[in-house]
């Protein structure tokens, strides 16, 4: 007779109330990503601009010769625009396989046979990407705001630019939500994460190239709506109360982003199913 019976036993412990599976997916996804050295390296690299900007703020607040570097709304807007590069790479690295890999491994029927809804699954996957993207956009931008307060030794900048806190938050969240939903929708279309990554890159660059071509031909910058990066740029300038560089109406830019998110949600709703029906 074995010392410890390793046979099947009934479970008599507690169970979490339903509706929390998304947080299990999010935690597991983030943990998996942080276990990858390449991703951690990319994450650390994404924080280098923060260090540069922190030095800039330090110099501007402590060295009279560096007054021309003083922080303003433009500094935070430019910082978030620079982070767009890392936003792109992290979106491709993390997001391309989020659903595509599950589809390749037929994992959707495993997930959806558990007490969770398709919506919870999508929210969990969305949270993985969105949280990691906010970690290279919203978090460093907010820390820069704190750095400014700390180095200047007063709240005067913060009080004078009170709109910066909501502006940073709003722009970061809109940008992250738009690209995360778009990437998830693309990821749900294929079983190959490589193909999804390429498709995303092509869409981002190709839409930008089309806009530049159309602009060169027509001279009309209202056509910026065909390019997601340009649309986000216009929206960002408006949120940070900076002069607009394109004629695309802000309401139009907002509409494009909303339509993109609605379209992505529709694709996800159609593609994330426990059973694939071929008729």
């Amino acid at each position, binding site marked *: 007779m074995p010392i410890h019976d*390793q046979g099947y036993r*009934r479970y008599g*412990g507690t169970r979490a109330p339903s509706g929390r*599976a998304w947080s299990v997916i999010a935690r597991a996804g983030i943990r998996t990503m942080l276990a990858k050295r390449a991703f951690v390296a990319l994450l650390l690299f994404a924080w280098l601009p923060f260090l540069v900007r922190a030095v800039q703020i330090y110099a501007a607040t402590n060295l009279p010769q560096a007054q021309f570097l003083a922080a303003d709304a433009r500094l935070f807007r430019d910082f978030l625009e620079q982070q767009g590069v890392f936003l792109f790479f992290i979106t491709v690295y993390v997001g391309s396989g989020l659903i595509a890999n599950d589809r390749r*491994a037929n*994992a959707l029927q495993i997930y959806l046979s558990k*007490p969770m*809804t398709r919506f919870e699954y999508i929210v969990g996957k969305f949270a993985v990407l969105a949280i990691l993207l906010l970690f290279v956009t919203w978090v460093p931008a907010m820390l820069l705001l704190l750095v400014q307060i700390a180095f200047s030794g007063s709240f005067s900048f913060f009080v004078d630019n009170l709109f910066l806190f909501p502006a940073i938050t709003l722009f970061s969240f809109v940008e992250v939500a738009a690209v995360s939903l778009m990437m998830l929708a693309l990821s749900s279309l294929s079983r190959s994460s490589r193909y999804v990554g390429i498709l995303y890159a092509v869409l981002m660059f190709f839409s930008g190239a089309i806009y530049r071509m159309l602009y060169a031909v027509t001279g009309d910058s209202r056509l910026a709506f065909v390019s997601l990066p340009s649309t986000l740029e216009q929206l960002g300038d408006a949120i940070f109360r900076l002069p607009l560089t394109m004629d695309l109406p802000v309401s139009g830019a907002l509409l494009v982003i909303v339509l993109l998110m609605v379209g992505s949600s529709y694709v996800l709703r159609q593609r994330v199913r*426990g059973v694939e029906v071929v*008729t």
Partner: protein
Amino acid sequence: MDAQSSVAALDDVTVIYGRQAALNGVSVSFAQGAVGLLGPNGAGKSTMIKALLGFVVPSRGRMHVLGDDVATSSREIRARVGYMPESDAHIPGLNAVSFVAYCGELSGLPPADAMQRAHEVLFYVGLGEARYRNVETYSTGMKQRIKLAQALVHDPDLVLLDEPTNGMDPKGREEMLALIRDLARNKGVNVIVSSHLLPDIELTCDRIVVMDKGRVVTEGLIEGLKQPHGQLFELRVKAPLGREAFVAALGAQGFDCQQGDDDVMKVFVPAPHGARELFALAASHQVQVRHLRPSVATLEDVFAQAVGGD
């Protein structure tokens, strides 16, 4: 059997894919214990399981699992049900113990309990030594076992097993069937096993539901279904004028005739008829009976009779 006493019940359920009815007005109840869902490929077995899980929504009818309505309490049902899919399925990038523990957490178990249960069920299904290996490196047989482990980790009251021995070698198949039998008979877990392999069902289940072309063609206790309401004969004949006319005449009399691989045919003669009528029919068709022996009905006979020998 009502919806309360059965573990699963379907009432006039129709599921349509495109123009094809995968389930066509199915009404059936699954009793407690181990029930085999038997049928040829395309009979609608997997569709029925997916409908019970809420993966596909029927265009007509109602379903209850463990007393709950599938249409309104799908999530509550899935908390008490384990599902082992037919196709190869796993969460990518995880080793076995992490995968099974993750499935436990998704089912609502606290992380520590989920991890402990993962170790236990992996030992139970025979993957204890391989539990730290990435699931993607597993053989087909091991993948079948881990699918069973993830279905059991949250201690379900009912497990739905879709072709559980697919791709397994004879030894692995035997072990898998022993596990299923143990679950149903000793662990108090209700099991519905979908398979097109009759021996698998006969080894593990007490009851069967036989499906064909989206309909339930027969159901009941295996032993009961094997008790013929008549006599089964093994018959070898010599028919100088051809045996087709004789077979047709058997059919016309209501005698069910199944042709075997060799020249032996199995003829079911319903009561109150017997061998005398068989001889008389042979004589009238100038057929010589070379061999006639009473036979014992097997599940194969029940199945063949139910699906019409297709």
